[in-house]
């Protein structure tokens, strides 16, 4: 895709384990005000449309779209909600710009995971009500099944997965807004409590609260608004099979398909060479490795070697999750993908402070919707 639309404003609030001082509306308001200030727009005058992402059972409210317009400056405007990752929402906004119907669109995603007292049961409620739910399995067991098959088939190892945790948690120490930065050792990860073998407690990203808001603009509007637009060069999204009975347990097909779509639009032929850095889903440690392979950032079975060699460290040849990823920043539910895009934008703008990468032109953000889905979305961005 040529330079047809860009991200021209970012704002965020969080990210921390709890956020008792602000209601979800106030959290959204804080992030939105920052995004509009960053973009230099007045949402009441300038924004043509608004998209939010939310799942009813994560909010504890049915048809949650009811409660989004006020705090975004979106009252009496074209607004709708997407049940998807934030990147799905961002794509829904971008499609409206591509269609020529709108020039400036606002996209919002948030997490108040700390307010969900029974998150594990809520996640289980997403399982097939007839085939799977009656088995009464903890949903983490699905991750255990997948990790087992992925490691078996690709010969990546449990230790390599643990290295992802060590890297991302350490990266988060350089991110002042990250909720879960820490200097932990490989041994800490490998000795942590078993959850659903081979998955251990520290392989799992803890949850955080927070909100991310973006302002998207068409090329003309973007050039008017900012000297530093971050261009959306490619976007892809795809669903694998929802059915646990028919799923590809070893490989993330949804990620491969989403990335191929995005790369095709962006004219990226050799992702490993052309993508300078990536923020990709690491809801579970093995997911970072599995997604690296599916996103063609390395060949099958090579992700583990890359982490062993330090290639995905901030100073490596292909830094991955410099922000700390979900393991370091926290799992932000629907906002997870937007946090990944946020990091790509900040890096490309040169605003990533202590964790700023040098000479980066093109970045990839990839989100998975989490358990129990096989749904993902990818975005290629460039300066």
């Amino acid at each position, binding site marked *: 895709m040529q330079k047809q639309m860009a991200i021209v404003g970012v704002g965020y609030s969080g990210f921390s384990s709890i956020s008792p001082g602000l*209601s979800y509306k*106030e959290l959204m308001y804080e992030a939105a005000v920052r995004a509009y200030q960053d973009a230099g727009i007045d949402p009441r005058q300038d924004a043509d449309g608004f998209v939010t992402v939310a799942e009813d059972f994560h909010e504890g409210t049915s048809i949650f779209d009811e409660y989004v317009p006020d*705090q975004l400056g979106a009252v009496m405007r074209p607004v709708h909600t997407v049940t998807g990752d934030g990147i799905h929402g961002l794509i829904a906004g971008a499609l409206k710009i591509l269609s020529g119907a709108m020039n400036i669109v606002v996209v919002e995603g948030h997490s108040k995971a*700390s307010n969900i007292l029974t998150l594990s*049961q*809520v996640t289980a409620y997403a399982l097939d009500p007839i085939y799977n739910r009656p088995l009464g399995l903890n949903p983490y067991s699905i991750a255990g099944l997948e990790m087992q098959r992925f490691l078996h088939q690709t010969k990546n190892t449990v230790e390599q997965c643990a290295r992802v945790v060590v890297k991302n948690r350490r990266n988060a120490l350089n991110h002042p807004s990250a909720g879960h930065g820490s200097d932990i050792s490989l041994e800490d990860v490998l000795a942590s409590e078993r959850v659903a073998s081979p998955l251990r407690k520290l392989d799992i990203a803890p949850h955080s609260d927070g909100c991310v808001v973006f302002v998207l603009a068409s090329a003309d509007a973007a050039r008017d608004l900012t000297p530093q637009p971050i261009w959306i060069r490619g976007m892809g999204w795809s669903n694998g099979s929802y059915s646990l009975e028919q799923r590809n347990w070893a490989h993330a097909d949804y990620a491969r398909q989403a990335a191929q779509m995005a790369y095709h639009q962006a004219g990226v032929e050799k992702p490993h060479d052309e993508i300078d850095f990536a923020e990709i889903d690491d809801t579970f440690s093995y997911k970072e490795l599995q997604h690296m392979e599916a996103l063609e950032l390395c060949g099958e079975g090579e992700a583990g070697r890359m982490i062993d060699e330090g290639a995905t460290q901030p100073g490596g040849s292909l830094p991955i999750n410099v922000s700390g990823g979900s393991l370091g920043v926290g799992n932000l539910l629907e906002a997870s993908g937007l946090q990944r895009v946020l990091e790509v934008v900040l890096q490309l703008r040169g605003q990533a402070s202590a964790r700023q990468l040098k000479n980066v032109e093109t970045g990839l953000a990839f989100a998975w919707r989490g358990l129990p889905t096989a749904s993902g979305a990818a975005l290629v961005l460039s300066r």
Partner: protein
Amino acid sequence: MAKIVRELPGLALTPEDISQRKVLSTSWVPKAEYAWDAGIAMGRYLEELRNGRLMGVRHRRCGRTVIPPRIFCEQCFAPMDEWGELPDTGTVNTFSICYVSWDVKRLEVPEIPAVIEIDGTSPRVGILHKLGEVDPQQVKVGMPVKAVWKPAEERNGAITDILYFQPI
């Protein structure tokens, strides 16, 4: 459409089909529990309800005074300017006489939900609550009403600290 008329899929079941297990089903009671952060505006609103007071917020630019409180004016998209106590009186904007409960059980004594425009707010600004101590047939749009509060020691910072509104 015309040519597929007789073939539309969709098999209608009767309640007996299910109760007599002619067709099978699985059941599940969701365990979805939440503790929503009240935050700044709603936190103070609830606290003042516990004190037996109704609070509103005002935005100077547009001149609106609204309830329930919010930290931002959603029309102007700017922070609200000031808090103020409102009287616990108002007028009925609209009402209903409802004979079914929230989970669709028939009620012997109907409930009377109403949108009550609270005195001291901008036109058409009200809250949802119920009317009480009134003959349902006597309720009228425009009727002045006043809050009936729970005794102070029973109030816990919730909208139900007001039992209902009654005609003045």
